[in-house]
């Protein structure tokens, strides 16, 4: 998968025909591939398109979609749209912060979770809502959101344990 994504990014760059307005799509494919936009991708894009690096950087920082830092394995997005806000999103955000021990915008030390807020996921009738990667969870309260985060944590611990068992097996 990773190899194909990488091909797609370089393919896009290589295919770049000088058409106007391709900067944002190029940045999007870079982010799809790397998970964020690394320095080298910026200079890469700049050298191919002839757009100064400073301008590329300006576009990156303007749009909230782009990240200059790598992201955790699980992206937790708490909806802070109007419907969720009036249904207690603040409490949900505080609970997730407490459970993960990080603030909005940060990534946990083990690189597993990144916490962000978004404006409306589009299922307001299930408010309050969170998304963990592509899975949406609705009709939450502090207790149930804690349970959901713990479920991901536990799943992660189990795979880690299995992996360490596997390496132990290898050693014996």
């Amino acid at each position, binding site marked *: 998968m990773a190899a194909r994504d990488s091909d797609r990014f370089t393919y896009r760059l290589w295919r770049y025909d000088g058409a106007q307005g391709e900067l944002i799509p190029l940045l999007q494919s870079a982010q799809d591939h790397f998970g964020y936009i690394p320095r080298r991708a910026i200079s890469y894009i700049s050298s191919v398109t002839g757009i100064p690096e400073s301008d590329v950087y300006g576009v990156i920082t*303007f749009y909230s979609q782009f990240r200059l830092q790598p992201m955790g394995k699980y992206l937790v997005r708490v909806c802070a749209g109007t419907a969720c806000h*009036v249904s207690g999103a603040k*409490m949900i955000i505080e609970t997730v912060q407490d459970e993960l021990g990080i603030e909005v915008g940060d990534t946990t030390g083990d690189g597993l979770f990144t916490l962000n807020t978004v404006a*409306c996921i589009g299922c307001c*009738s*299930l408010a309050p809502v969170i998304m963990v990667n592509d899975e949406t969870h609705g009709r939450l309260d502090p*207790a149930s959101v804690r349970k959901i985060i713990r479920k991901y944590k536990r799943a992660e611990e189990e795979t880690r344990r299995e992996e360490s068992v596997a390496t132990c097996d290898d050693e014996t």
Partner: protein
Amino acid sequence: MKKVIVGMGTCGLSAGAQAVYDKLDEILKEHPGTFSLSHTGCIGMCYREPLVEIRENGCRTIYGEVTPDVSDEIYKEHIVDGKTLSDHVVYSIDSAGDCGGSEADYLELQKRIVLRNCGTCNPESIDEYEAAGGYEALRKSLLKMKPGDIIEEIKNSGLRGRGGAGFPTGLKWSFAAQNESDIKYVVCNADEGDPGAFMDRSVLEGDPHSVLEGMIICGRAIGASSGYIYCRAEYPLAIHRLTIAIDAARAKGYLGKNILGSGFDFDLKIKQGAGAFVCGEETALFASIEGKRGMPRIRPPFPAEKGLWGKPTNNNNVETYANIPWIIANGSEAYAAFGTEKSKGTKVFALAGKVVRGGLAEVPMGTTIHDLVFKIGGGIKQGKGFKAVQMGGPSGGCIPAAMDETQVDFESIPATGAIMGSGGLVVLDETACMVEIARFFLDFTQSESCGRCTFCRIGTRRMLEILTRISMGEGQSGDIEKLVEFGEQVREASLCGLGQSAPNPALTTIRYYRDEYEAHIKEKCCPAGSCTALVDFYIDPEKCTGCTLCVKKCSVEAIAGERKEPHTIDIEKCVRCGQCISSCKFEAVYTK
């Protein structure tokens, strides 16, 4: 043969529609040929998702809150034995047109023009769209009408832009048509920035072809041969379905060279937004399509003169385009028969917040807020009191319950200080604090301000600071007057619609709920009991299990109690940080 259709818009999917579809698919593999399986976009009854419809000989039965187990029952009882599972039916219509089911009245007041195919057609099938009369309007406008006739027809229909401002669409098209140029563009604004609105997304996910058809007709009318759809990147499913629709339309010759042998060429591209509210403003949107920072510029020149890449451009909202094929096919008179004198047709609303039936509702213009909230929305959740509706999101305002006889149209809503907006309608109950609502929206606009003009950049920040301190109980006398003064200046002096409308949430709440602001400032209390800094925390001894978690969380040692005994909070020591509420697993902590 019975046709089984699963509602698979974003609302359905997040309620678990995929598992239901997979289960039905499995059943179908075990018993091939017993029914046919398909999927559709949002039917509108988001509050009962996942929905499954069974269709046979003109009869429709829609089941709500379907789980994989229920779908098993549906197969055994309904599909095999032909019996309906009456407990789960939310809506049904028999061949004579009689409606039944627990939610029959949800659709009663509605008139579906924009949503005509949402929830009935498979959005990934161009054949189903054609079978429902799709692309007939395009055929008519290419082969039987002159560009001028199309514009006349749209003008006569009275259609006004659904993106918020309500500019007459026919007139807008005529401006773009008049300007001579080798290249012109048709742009569809699918940025849907209002955080709490999802009409455009549901149309794109549920009926993408109607938007494409509207855009192609517009291209013909103004003489443009290429178009862009600017869609939020947060809407991956909409982008996916649009891509499928564009490819299918191209394969059938509705896009490309010499469409339907008329000699007219037109093609479309999708551009993904990248998460900036201001890019919903049309000049910022053009800058974003051009690959730049999405900053608005001063108008004039208007897009009809100098738009995308400096060429004449027509930009409309998703819902505006989705109306076009219906108007061309049914005639402007049929359209103008709906609505009020100055606002014709229908409007789609995304009902959300503290309303029982949250979902999509399309009603004729002029329907009252009361009907929307109570007849369609089913009233307020948990039997609480109705306080206000918020319309138009961050650019809009709150309309109090006492004014719920206000009609929704482009004249009556702005008269209240709110705006029509794109159709987000968030219902607030008695627990909503109006200062907090204003603070919430200003927080949003302040962080989305692109920073280009001073009034918007700094004015919104000063307003946010004042609102924040009022909700923290640190408001000073004179703060309300300052908010009004700043608000009016920001409104007057900002460059684009974002700044010009940003003060609306604060100004309308001050207009209707000044006493609430005063209570925060003078008495340091929040009448709605919502601002945590101004309420006291208590523990319900019935619910408290004595787990001691809150004791550990409390940073000021304000909570006392033995293990397995109900705890108590010392109000004198409490700093109202709210940690106990969010840490309690039993919802035993409450505020008063």
